């Protein structure tokens, strides 16, 4: 019994899980779930699908080159059982996993450096270009305008208010007059 890896997404496949396809040349393909199986049947390339390990590895999203990764391997040399060896192996497994997670974290950090700077630059640029959308600025603008031309504005407003109704009244009168003419 062993934990296989999914042929498509490299997810671990525990015994009794998933499905195996055996091609007529005796190559076995193990799939963790129907999603992977279906994608395989559709002849999709796992390297081109973002959700697979194959993609993440080929796109440098995960640690690929590291000494911790060479510990687990299928060795085709049968080793005779030794209790001491298995004991050390179990200890080593734990330690290797520990180191591996540590390095993966470091790898992630390394990969993400520069993101903060980029984000800040983008923020700065956005704020600079869109000053008018900020509430305080609007308020301030309106206030200053109001203070500067308080009297003038009121005058003008009154004038316009008077002018428009006057024009409308004239138009109405004309129409009425026209009607009257027709009657006559």
């Amino acid at each position, binding site marked *: 019994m062993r934990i296989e890896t999914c042929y498509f997404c490299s997810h671990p496949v525990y015994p009794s899980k998933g499905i195996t396809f055996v091609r007529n040349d005796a190559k076995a393909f193990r799939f963790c779930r129907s999603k992977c199986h279906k994608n395989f049947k559709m002849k999709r390339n796992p390297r081109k699908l973002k959700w697979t390990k194959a993609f993440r590895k080929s796109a440098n999203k995960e640690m690929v080159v590291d000494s911790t990764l060479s510990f*687990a391997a299928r060795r085709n040399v049968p080793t005779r059982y*030794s209790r001491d060896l298995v004991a050390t192996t179990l200890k080593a497994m734990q330690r290797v996993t520990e180191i591996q997670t540590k390095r993966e974290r470091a790898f992630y950090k390394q990969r993400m450096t520069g993101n903060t700077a980029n984000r800040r630059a983008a923020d700065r640029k956005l704020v600079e270009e869109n000053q008018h959308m900020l509430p305080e600025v609007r308020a301030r603008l309106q206030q200053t305008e109001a203070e500067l031309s308080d009297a003038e504005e009121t005058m003008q407003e009154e004038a316009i208010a008077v002018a428009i109704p006057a024009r409308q009244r004239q138009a109405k009168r004309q129409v009425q007059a026209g009607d009257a003419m027709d009657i006559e």
Partner: protein
Amino acid sequence: MVQTTWKAIAPVPTSQEFLDIVLSRTTRKTPTVIRSGFKISRIRAFYLRKVKFTQDTFTEKLQAILDGFPKLQDIHPFHKDLMNTLYDADHFRIALGQLSTAKHLIEQVCRDYVRLIKYAQSLFQCKQLKRAALGRMATITRRLKDPLLYLEQVRQHLGRLPGIDPNTRTLLICGYPNVGKSSFLRSITRADVDVQPYAFTTKSLFVGHFDYKYLRFQAIDTPGILDHPLEEMNTIEMQSITAIAHLKSVILYFMDLSEQCGYSVAAQVQLFHSIKPLFANKIVFVVVNKIDVVKPEDLDEESQKLIQTMLQGGEVEMLQLSCHTEQGISEVKNKACERLLAARVEQKLKTNRATDILNRIHVAQPIGGVTREAFIPDAVKERTKYDVNDPNRRKLEKDIEAEEGGAGVYNINLKKNYMLDNEEWKFDKVPEIFDGKNVYDFIDPDIESKLAALEAEEERLEAEGFYDEEESIEDDDEADIRVKAEFIREQKQLIRNAARSKKALKNRAVIPRQKMPKNISEMKNSLEKIGLDASTVVDRARSKSRGRSVANRSRATSEMGGDAEMRDISMHDISQMTLKERAKSRVRSQSNRREDGVTNEGARTKAEKIAKLNQKKMNRMARQGEADRHVSAALPKHLFSGKRTIGKTNRR
């Protein structure tokens, strides 16, 4: 390789058939339409072609027949003689000769008439000449009637001749008629030869094959021979004589001492002596058949003496068998084959090829005469043979099974035979999976050294500061910018969403701006959200709005107390206003939408013109414009009919 069988000779047609074949071929393969109006050169060419083609076909067909039959001078003397006896070589040769002559005659006729046609003056002349030529060719062919018939018979007979290979290992069975030659062939080979109790059952040569020492032998059964001069022998007997004379073989001379065949012992011995000259350079056995009836020892002295005369010289050996009881058959066969093989090997050794091969054979020996013994381990040598009755015998797995309760109860423990460094480890339970990993993938004899190397590398990396993390702390300024940027993004998204929802409206009916319910609180909220002071605007709007219900109005007026003019209007009871008055009131007045947004008449006309112009293209292309309304089907067929396999009722 000289040919030994002639099974694939093409059938020979009769003279009439031959003629039909050739003439029909001529009509089929040459042009048929000619008119007297054509140029004379063309007419001549047409008939020349006919004549030449006919001649070609004749020649070709005759040559094919001539080539198909074997040339007597090219084949093995045995076959040549056999053919001579069966078909009469002279007759055969003459028949072929006649065909060959006919061929030449036809060629001659063709040449003559071609020459004549060249000078023919009309179509009629040409045609007559062609007819004459073909007629003469046909006459020549008709004269071949007999030879063709004869050759066809020869062909049929040749095809059925047994495939006798004169050079292979051969046993030849001969003797008086009815002495048991065919019975012997039947008993040693798979050949299905007719055996009957009368003389001359076998009228021709028969061949059977059998294997001895993985080599293929052929046994030839010959018809019986009578003792009279060669000239008087008939065709049947001559076949035997031919075979005896020409085949390099072992000769088994069959004798019947019981005289059931109808010939006396003396006569049989006499025959042997008379054909003895043919046995030169051959291995000869005298085979006494039917020993179940009479054995050589039982004969009278006179006959015994006669038999002894045959065996004089020591080269001829006597063998005994009985086809009836099958006694001695295989001995005879083996003895004959053995002698034949020995003779053939001896003959081969005399040739140069054998010495060449012998010179090349080399068997290597260890240097210095050292003997190389096979290695047998001591454990194997000391091992005692297993004996069931021995009390100190080895204990087998079978014995353990019997002790532990027998088959079905006892389960063999394979682990006890494990070869490990420590006996205690045999029954250990080893984890296969640990922490989601396969333990067996990690098992490696030099894992410790590898792990040590990894630890060293880890220490080095830590010392180098590989794992150090740089925490960038953001100051107040940056935090401010971030908050602002987030706000702007949100606003932008809202604008985008609004635009999208507007677009989603498409050409559906839109509620006019005026009719849209909008209340002051919404305006106030949105203004406050963008940071504007909304109080003055709200106050103004409230003041301008039409009065509410009586109860609300009184509250409103008390709030607005100071505005005398406002109170004046509001106090005026709306319920008392006539409809006309209401329609004319300033509050309900509508702005003219045509004039909205344009400064003067000219600008308006210009705007209208531009609007028309813009619409022009849409109309021309029969595109959906602003004014088009689309009413979709109330029950779209594709959404409401059929079974649901995948998807939902309203999304398909």
